[in-house]
Every structure is written in C-alpha cells, then in structure tokens.
C-alpha cells in the first residue's frame, strides 16, 4: 500500500510544509533559533538585513513559499563574517541577542567533497606518484581563510583539510573555495540532516529503502554450490604477462 503518494501525504501531515524547508548553502543568520521556531518568531522586519555591513544577509523571495521576507545567508555567494551585529537588533528574539562570541555561532556545518577538493586530489596523486607531471595543485585556501583556523578546521597529515565540530558554518571557506566548476565545500544549514554523517542506522535505513533486484536466472543453494564446485582453474593461464621471470615447471625452480 505504501507508495510515493502515501509517503508524500504522511510527510505533509507529520511536518508543517511551510517550515523546515532546508536547502544546502542557504543558512539563517547567526544566532537563529531552530528553524521551526524561527519561522514562528521572525516578523520579517528586515532589520538584520539592513544592519548587515557585508550585504551577506539577503531577503527570501516569493519562490520560497511562505518564507518571503525572512533573512537568509547564501554562503557560496557571500559568506557571513561573524560581525555579530544582526542578533542585537532582532525585536522578537528570533536571533538570540545573548550571543556575543563568534565562535559560539552554529549556523551550519561545512562538508568537504573529497573527490573534487584540490588538496585531497593532490594527496591521492602523490600516493600514486603522478604529481611529477605537474597537474596536481596544492590549495589550502579553506584552511587559510577560516576565522577559527586550527580549531574549526585542521590539516590532517599537514595536507588534508578536516572540519571539526567547532565549525561555525559561516561559510567563508565555501565563498573562497577556488575549485571549478563546482565548489568543493558545501554548507549544510543547522538542523538539516547530513547523509554522510547519519551513522549506522541512517545507512541501514537507506540500504533497505533501495529496491533489491536480483538478475534473472540467478542460482540458489545447492545448485549454486554445484556450479561453483565445477569451476576448475588448474590449467588456466592469465591473459596478461607478468613483468618478472616465471618458472614454468616445478623442477626449474628447484634447480636454482
């Protein structure tokens, strides 16, 4: 009975469709209470937008459903520089005014894509020994621009950038990341589930959700065992050549 539509209906009933509308690289300003509460408290007065000296905070547009007028930070475009001005002006406490230290801010979490990050690529090339060709590049920009270097981001083995749980989610690394065509750092907003960090149960859930399809004519049990026992590799020879000397027979080896 469960299908796409019943699931959609369930989601609609279990969660307010006008709230919890997370997207990667779209954060609330620093000090924001959790998303559901934020949507209730924010009166769209745009004071935080007005007061932001870097123009980092933008106003949500009509296509954001009922969130029109609420403040957002788009870190891949213009990051938050943690000047801590916006939370003091909020009239309803949607941004917590007691927050004064930049390092206490938790807007989100940066996640590095290890397939495209230049440093990770360099490390891989180095291990394989191809960096002599000169194509690999060393970058470390995220490490250099981070306002809390060595606590929010550390260099593992002096080369691989790793983000710790002290990450404020300000997104300066995502703004400055030079890798093309897509940036290697994505900021997940606070409250959005991160698949890679979901842990055992998250992974299990995902595996079960995938449809298990077995190829047609697959063998089972006794038949499979018999089939496997018939495989005989005694006289088989590899179809490639070894790059070392091989001895065809046992005697040859013993004569040595």
């Amino acid at each position: 009975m469960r299908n796409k539509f019943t699931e959609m209906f369930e989601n609609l009933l279990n969660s307010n469709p006008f709230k919890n509308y997370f997207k990667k690289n779209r954060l609330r300003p620093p000090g924001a209470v959790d998303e559901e509460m934020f949507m209730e408290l924010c009166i769209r007065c745009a004071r935080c937008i007005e007061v932001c000296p870097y123009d980092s905070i933008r106003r949500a547009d009509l296509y954001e459903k009922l969130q029109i007028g609420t403040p957002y930070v788009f870190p891949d475009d213009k990051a938050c520089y943690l000047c801590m001005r916006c939370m003091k002006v909020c009239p309803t406490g949607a941004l917590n005014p007691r927050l004064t230290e930049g390092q206490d801010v938790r807007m989100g979490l940066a996640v590095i894509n290890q397939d495209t990050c230049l440093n990770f690529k360099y490390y891989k090339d180095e291990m394989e020994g191809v960096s002599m060709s000169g194509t690999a590049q060393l970058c470390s920009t995220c490490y250099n621009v981070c306002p809390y270097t060595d606590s929010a981001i550390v260099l593992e083995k002096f080369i691989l950038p790793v983000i710790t749980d002290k990450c404020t989610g300000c997104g300066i690394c995502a703004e400055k990341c030079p890798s093309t065509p897509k940036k290697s750092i994505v900021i997940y907003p606070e409250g959005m589930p991160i698949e890679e960090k979901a842990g055992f149960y998250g992974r299990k859930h995902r595996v079960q959700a995938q449809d298990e399809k077995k190829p047609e004519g697959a063998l089972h049990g006794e038949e499979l065992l018999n089939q496997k026992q018939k495989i005989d590799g005694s006289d088989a020879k590899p179809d490639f050549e070894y790059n070392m000397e091989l001895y065809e027979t046992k005697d040859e080896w013993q004569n040595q």
Partner: protein
Amino acid sequence: MKIKTFRRIAQTATLIAIFLIPLLNVFELYFIKGTFYSMDIGDAAIADPLAVFQSMLASGTINPYMIGSLIIPIALMLLLGRVWCSWFCPYYFIAEMMEKLRKLMRMKPFKPQYTDSYPHKQAKYRYLFLLVGLLVMSVIGVPILNLISAPGIISSQALVLVKFGYVTFELVFVAVLVFLELFYYRWWCRLFCPTGTFLSFFRMKRGMTVRKVADECSNCLTCVRTCPMMINPMTMGESGHCNNCGDCVDACPDNRKKDTLKFTFR
C-alpha cells in the same frame, strides 16, 4: 493653521524617511534602522504590536525582547490614539493621493452614504477579518498577516530597492490595493487592514480624542461628511475607528466662532 498641513508634513517626512533610513544604513550610520514592521531609533525598539502578537501566538512564548519593543507603540496609542494610521502610514497617504487623483480625473464622488448603522457594519468586517486572519495564522504557524500589511510591505520594498536595487513581487499586492482605492472609497483602511484594527484595541478614552466641546452646534453634519473613516465624529470619537486625522476639526464651520469640535485630553 490647519491640522491637515501638519499631517501632510508628517506624512511626507515618513515617505522620505522610508528611502532615507536604508540609505543611511548603507553608509553605515546605524542610528535609525528597520522598516515599519519594527524599528530602532537609537536603542529604543519599536515594533508593530500585531506582528509581535502573531509571533507570541505562533510560538507560544513571550520573551523580554518582545515586551520591550511593545512598550513605546502601545504607550503612544494610549496617549495619542491611532495617530500611526493617519499621520504616518505611507499607505494612508497614497490612498489620500488616490482620492485627489479621482478629483483631478473628474470622476463622480464615490463616498458611500452615511447612516447610523454604517459604522457597526464596518466594524463587523474589520474584526471578522482580523479574527479569521489570526486563526489561519495560528494554524499555519507563520505570521502571515505581516505579508498583507501594506505599510510594512512598502517600507521593506523601499529597503530592498535601496540596498539591493530590485523590488519583489509583493509590491504587486500593494499596487492592486492602490488601484482598487480608485473605485472603493478607503476600502482597505476602513474594512480590512489588520494592523489598524489591532492597534485600535489599545484605545483609551483618556487619551487624545475628538469631542464635541460645546453643548450646541449648528448641526450641519459637515464633520460626518468629511470623515474618511465613515463615523460620526461628534459622538464616536472614542471608538476604535477614529484615527485622529483631524479632518473633521478642520472642516467644522462652528470652530471659527467658538470651540465646538476639538482634540481633547481628559
């Protein structure tokens, strides 16, 4: 000097301030900041009581920041009556200008006929609209009445225009309201505006109200005809409909000889 002159000065100053405040903020002068949903003058926080009430209702919490931003507007309401609407609201100013435009285009007078039951009929619309709005808002859990607050939209659009150089779709809503203002006399302010309705709950009889001071007047009913909110200023100055615009005080012919219809504190 006519009260209307002062009122026009205040309205024009507000209209200029809408663009000036974001401009000052762009140049990093953060003395006055905010839109007409909520504003900071120095460190004094002012917020639209309806907006704050909505977020109280939706979140179920009351925190000191909300209370702090409510003190000044409610004190002003109790002291001076609903002056926000007639003296400062940019939408009211535009609506008045539309009335003038109608006169310029020589269209027929379109003000509805005043009868004794008319104010009560109006009140029904206003309170019902606010009640339904608050109900829908609390079901959805998002302060949606802010999305139809005309002064808030106008000032936040001005902010977006000055700071980022574009306007968003919400301006169309205000444009529709303004266009309909040509055909229905002050319909938004009189019958629907939730912000004004909510403000009128904080009306105090001891504050500034229009009253008939003299015992007798010539009973010409000029004040009734001029009143933009369609009430009888001689008897209903204390009601929530009156927004202390002072048009009736200006119009009263008896005022020239003897104080008849005046703003009074009691």
